[in-house]
């Protein structure tokens, strides 16, 4: 994974609440066996309408998406994170995220940054005309107008993102502990191994 330390640029002031993953990428796009090319189907129903915010030239090349509460709710499809990445989005800012989506975003180096509604409201305003900056070192979002909003992030996720660590490699380094757990459970709970159907 590539390290992510800073995201700077225009943001799409989308603002909608409870954006579900069927809205981000409808199921018909899930038939792929690749992670690539899903941007085409991203927000398909919304983008079918003339004058939608995603195709507004004002926000062409935007790297940040600003949304309302509970972004990414619904299905576990990681295709939602892949579709956003394929659209060129590298960070989503919202008051809250669904648990599964924020995990999927993290695994793909896509920042899912939660800040209070008041901060989101202000950033929505700024985004209409000016760029915003997300700094992972200081864990803050800033604007050209001296706004500064601090955010929190799970320390493990923060470290993985900033250092670009591969999570499977990190876990495989703990193979001894995994083996110990398996040995203990094999002897204490031998019934945990399913009988082959």
């Amino acid at each position: 994974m590539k390290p992510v330390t800073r995201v700077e640029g225009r943001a799409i002031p989308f603002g909608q609440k409870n954006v579900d993953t069927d809205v981000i990428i409808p199921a018909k796009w899930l038939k792929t066996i690749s992670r690539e090319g899903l941007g085409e189907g991203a927000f398909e129903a919304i983008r079918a309408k003339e004058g939608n915010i995603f195709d507004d030239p004002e926000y062409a090349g935007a790297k940040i998406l600003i949304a309302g509460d509970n972004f990414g709710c619904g299905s576990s499809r990681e295709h939602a994170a892949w579709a956003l990445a394929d659209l060129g989005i590298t960070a989503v800012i919202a008051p809250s995220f669904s648990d599964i989506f924020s995990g999927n975003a993290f695994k793909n180096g896509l920042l899912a940054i939660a800040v209070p509604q008041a901060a989101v409201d202000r950033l929505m305003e700024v985004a209409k005309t000016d760029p915003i900056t997300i700094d992972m070192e200081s864990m803050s979002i800033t604007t050209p107008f001296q706004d500064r909003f601090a955010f929190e992030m799970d320390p493990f996720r923060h470290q993985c993102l900033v250092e670009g660590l591969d999570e499977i490699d990190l876990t495989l380094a703990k193979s001894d502990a995994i083996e110990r757990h398996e040995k203990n459970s094999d002897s204490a709970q031998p019934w945990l191994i399913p009988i082959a159907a």
Partner: protein
Amino acid sequence: MKQPKTLYEKIWDAHVVDQRDDGTALIYIDRHLVHEVTSPQAFEGLRKAGRKVRRPDLTLAVPDHNLPTTARLDAKGRKIPIADPQSAAQLEALEANAPAFGIEYIGASDINQGIVHVIGPEQGFTLPGTTLVCGDSHTAAHGALGALAFGIGTSEVEHVLATQTLQLTRSKAMEIRVDGLLGPGISPKDLILHIIGVIGTAGGTGHVIEYRGEVFEQMSIEGRLTVSNMSIEAGARAGLIAPDERTFAYLKGRPMAPKGADWDAAVAYWKTLPTDEGAKFDKSVTINAADIAPTVTWGTSPEDVVPVNGVVPAPDSFADPSKQDAARKSLDYMGLEAGQALRDVSVENIFIGSCTNSRIEDLRAAASILTGRKKADNVKWAIVVPGSGLVKAQAEAEGLDRIFIDAGFEWREPGCSACLGMNPDKVPAGERCASTSNRNFVGRQGPGARTHLMSPAMAAAAAVTGRLTDVRELTR
């Protein structure tokens, strides 16, 4: 004295492989269900990195999402090809990946095939006290048996395949206590829709919900699966119901469940799992069962629920301005007017199926309404999709298939079907569907499709009258 623990804490603590100072823990995964949609990129990742599956014996693969629900074999027993080349490629990928990585695979025409969340419990693969994951958010269903079960993304699928663990932070524990019992004609689906209406689709975010109260103790495992399944619609990654004698009776003798002395040891362990008296929950919500009527959704979020005898709410009736806006958009999409009685809404499509409501009890409940009746003329398309080959066989043994067919329904092969618009079963744009599935999102059942979520008996009642109907009118 030992600190009292919740069921969630007990399962979590028993699966910590490694605890980091920052609060993240490496959690061992006892069970992994794999289907065709969220796994191809994970297997590809393993291949690229030269990694193998750590515990193929704890992994079970089955196709469900993409599979057409029409006949799978022709009269000579030959496989009928799948018309959509992308779906075919995805299904072939699973069929090839499973044996290549040593994973047991239940094929499309095997009688044991079905929706992942139906076959897990049915095969006895799902067990109390285990951690169970699948690349599908409705994995929450398995919590009905007291397993800590949750949906994961494809990168996590790859992580579990490679390491049999996940890096997780502990969720908060939420209690939903239901006082009293469900009235006549009120089903577990009405209960969970009502709960989601009360707490909202983000009400359980960051939490694992434990459902508590006498109503769950008296509920069948099928009913518990329906409730726990939709925990994700309340924002919770997992739901839990304490394992009890009903759970043990359900599991005993299932093909993959423990046998003999192992069974006795397992039951003894499972009995230690229920939440201790005095254990603390981070959040607690109380629901009064007497408040619950047959419930349907009016909008495009599972929290948009209303008793079937109610009216479509006015967007202005919501306090939150963004909810008002969302309600306006929902009504526009759904083609409904504020103040309109739900019972006046006619439906053209009926879908009985999905991991929420495709088990034998669901089919019995729907069939009991349809016995000796026919679907209304304005209902163009009505299908029943059993959750698994075994459910289908059981229903046929009970003659339920005849009741459905005589009522004008199509009797299909198991799969996810019209719950999500990715296989051939779709609801046409602008048409309504009385659906026993779990999501009424925009475009969920096909572009422009209008979904009303409800119980199997309610969907059957809608088929008979051709409009949203209080099932109790047909049972009096």
